[in-house]
């Protein structure tokens, strides 16, 4: 039953990063590449029409984690206190940037909210990557000081960074050189994804240029990925064990690889949807591979005293999980129905769609 819920939450999270991921990506593209007012407007529209129904997946993932793995939810949310609150503020800035830019028609107003949307999208992409980096690296669970646990059980508190910026100390911070590498991968991946979304949903004049941008970013991503595999081994030496033990887990890295390979042909691809499909594979493969390398651990412990948090030691009762599964399945079917209705009715390019009141 724990495994069921683990898979469901992993799917919801992956869907969140695929859907809201393109919102973040459009923000980054908007920040760096949109120069003409018409492009800015249409790119903001391509995210603005969808962000709130995409963000719901984050709320759903949060609610499900809370329900299925309450101990994990409690320790991770209080442990990453400062970065999470900063993420909340960024989410707010991004949302109001999108919603409010077209409400008034003078340039300064628009410039402020464009920057708010772009910068907060960029930082959110970076923070989500850093978060993944932290989960891979593990934390000092229970806050061990000189071989003695200072907090009961599994509570911890991470400072934003440690002065050494090293992931290998006894008390690593949220930001260190390893998590920054993962953060950069996230920024590059979501930029590619966002660019593909802009190409798919708009007739923007920069669409052609964006294909070149994607190609170049993809090279950067390939280099970063190879580099990260190397440092990944340093911070978490057990990370390959699962793939050796359960060879079918290899399907996840292969999904990632397919995405990366596909994107090298972006300039030749005629149909816009394929580019988007490849970057979707990239995100899907990236998240599932990371989770698969940790499974069944949810958060590794960097000290020897505390057990890592796993899906087994952080869960609630069997009965709770099973009733939730019943309504969860119904809910899921409804979600996909809503999503299909919405994407069908609002399919096609957004240029002509009415937005901004």
């Amino acid at each position, binding site marked *: 039953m724990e495994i069921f819920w683990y898979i469901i939450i992993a799917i919801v999270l992956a869907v969140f990063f695929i859907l809201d991921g393109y919102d973040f990506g459009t923000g980054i593209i908007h920040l760096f590449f949109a120069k003409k007012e018409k492009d800015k407007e249409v790119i903001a529209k391509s995210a603005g029409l969808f962000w*709130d129904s995409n963000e719901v997946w984050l709320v759903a993932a949060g*609610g499900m984690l809370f*329900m299925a793995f309450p101990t994990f939810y409690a*320790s*991770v949310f209080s442990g990453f206190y400062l970065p*999470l*609150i900063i993420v909340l503020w960024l989410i707010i800035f991004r*949302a109001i940037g999108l919603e409010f830019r077209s409400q008034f028609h003078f340039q300064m107003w628009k410039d402020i909210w464009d920057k708010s949307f772009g910068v907060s999208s960029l930082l959110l992409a970076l923070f989500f990557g850093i978060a993944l980096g932290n989960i891979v690296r593990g934390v000092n669970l229970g806050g061990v000081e000189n071989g003695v646990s200072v907090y009961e059980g599994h509570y911890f508190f991470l400072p934003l960074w440690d002065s050494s910026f090293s992931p290998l100390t006894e008390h690593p911070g949220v930001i260190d050189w390893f998590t920054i590498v993962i953060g950069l991968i996230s920024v590059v991946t979501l930029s590619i994804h966002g660019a593909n979304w802009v190409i798919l949903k708009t007739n923007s004049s920069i669409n052609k240029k964006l294909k070149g941008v994607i190609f170049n970013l993809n090279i950067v991503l390939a280099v970063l990925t190879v580099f990260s595999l190397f440092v990944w081994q340093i911070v978490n030496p057990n990370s390959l064990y699962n793939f050796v033990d359960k060879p079918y887990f290899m399907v996840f890295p292969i999904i990632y690889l397919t995405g990366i390979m596909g994107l090298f042909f972006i300039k030749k691809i005629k149909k816009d949807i394929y580019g988007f499909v490849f970057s979707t594979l990239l995100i899907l493969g990236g998240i599932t591979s990371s989770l698969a390398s940790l499974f069944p651990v949810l958060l590794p412990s960097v000290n020897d005293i505390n057990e890592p948090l796993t899906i087994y030691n952080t869960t609630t009762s069997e009965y709770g999980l099973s009733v939730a599964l019943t309504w969860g399945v119904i809910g899921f079917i*409804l979600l996909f129905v809503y999503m299909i209705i919405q994407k069908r009715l609002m399919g096609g390019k957004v240029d002509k769609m009415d937005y901004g009141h």
Partner: protein
Amino acid sequence: MEDMLFYDRLQFAFTITFHYIFPQLTMGLSLMIVFFKWKYLRNNDEKYNNAAKFFMKIFAVNFTMGVVTGIPMEFQFGTNWAKFSELTGGIIGQTLAMEGMFSFFLESSFLALFIFGEKLMGQKLHFLTGFLVFLGSWASGWFILATNAWMQHPVGYEVLENGKFVLENFSALFTNPWLLPAFLHNQLASVVTSSFVVASIGAFYLLRKKQVEYGKLFLKTGVIFGLVSSLLVAFPTGDWNAKNVAKYQPAAFAAMEGIFETEEAGAEIVLVGQPNMVEKKLDNKIAVPNILSFLTHQDWNKQIPGMDQFKKEELPDNIPALYYSYHIMVGLGTIFIGVMLLSLFFLWRRKLYTLKPLLWVIMFLVPFPYIANLTGWYTAELGRQPYLVYGLLKTSDGISPTVSSGNTLFTLLGFVALYMLLGLLFLVLVGKTINEGPKHQKH
């Protein structure tokens, strides 16, 4: 630890107060939008369709604010109240996850369709999307109140050896005797808020002599919805809730009503008075004998336990705040009924649209339903103190053990600053929409 508890409570109180301003309007307003759209389908008068779309614009800005201030609420359970989350997540996680899955998704998917999709679908489908938005927003209220009802009156749980609460009976969460009255009371109160907002915009148009046709429509709709809902808020739902508090949280009931000492021959109802915590009595009291006993138990002489019957640690920790919240809510509710009755009388005599003094009153009354709703919410929450889960888990045992008070203070200040900005933007945008009026619709 003391500091920590104080800042955690302050932060939660602040963020939820600000958040609750928005959903209370969207829940009520969605009903009125469905009403306008339904009238349009019935008599094909373009005026009603424009009214529906006009309020949908205000709804949309409110909804955005509700979403961006609501996500922090879910996060804060984990960040600031980690112990509480760990112990009760298996239960209230159910209702919170259901809220995300069944209502929030419904609302946000169909809101976009309602706003942007009128041309893409027929009028009947458009009505349906509006109705689904309404359904989603009310379902949201249902699940949030189911969560709160469990904290007020825990049911269907089992406590494990490690102190964790786990679910034992899922359906008990939704048949909780606390839930239905609290839900109905809350939803009707949100209809009161939206009625006052609609009536107030109507009064504004009439006083300004612009958009007069819509001014009359809004005022009439607002007054009729407002009277019905404010009556229903008081009776039967308000009465029903008060009886529940008396039954399940007698200590909170005594503090709410300001009964310091038990009277053997029936309890009086306090209309006015200030709790004096030093001498344990009410100063400047105006009270009517035996009424409270009758209202609570339909028996003039039935005894109601006063605060002297409870141990100090069972009593709410801030009795004056609880007492005032409750009395402000009841007082305002009474005023609303009075104003709406008067307005209906003049509406019936065909004088309301030109009766300036009353129009001014209606226009400026708009913050008060918000205050009444918030004080109502405070009454429930302060009454539950000193517990998070009534009788089972103390508030002081629910906070995050590893987060220091400095961090909470820092993030609290951040939220205050950010929400000030949000509030300002919100007022500017809603003001602009109202100023433009219903005819300036592009779609």
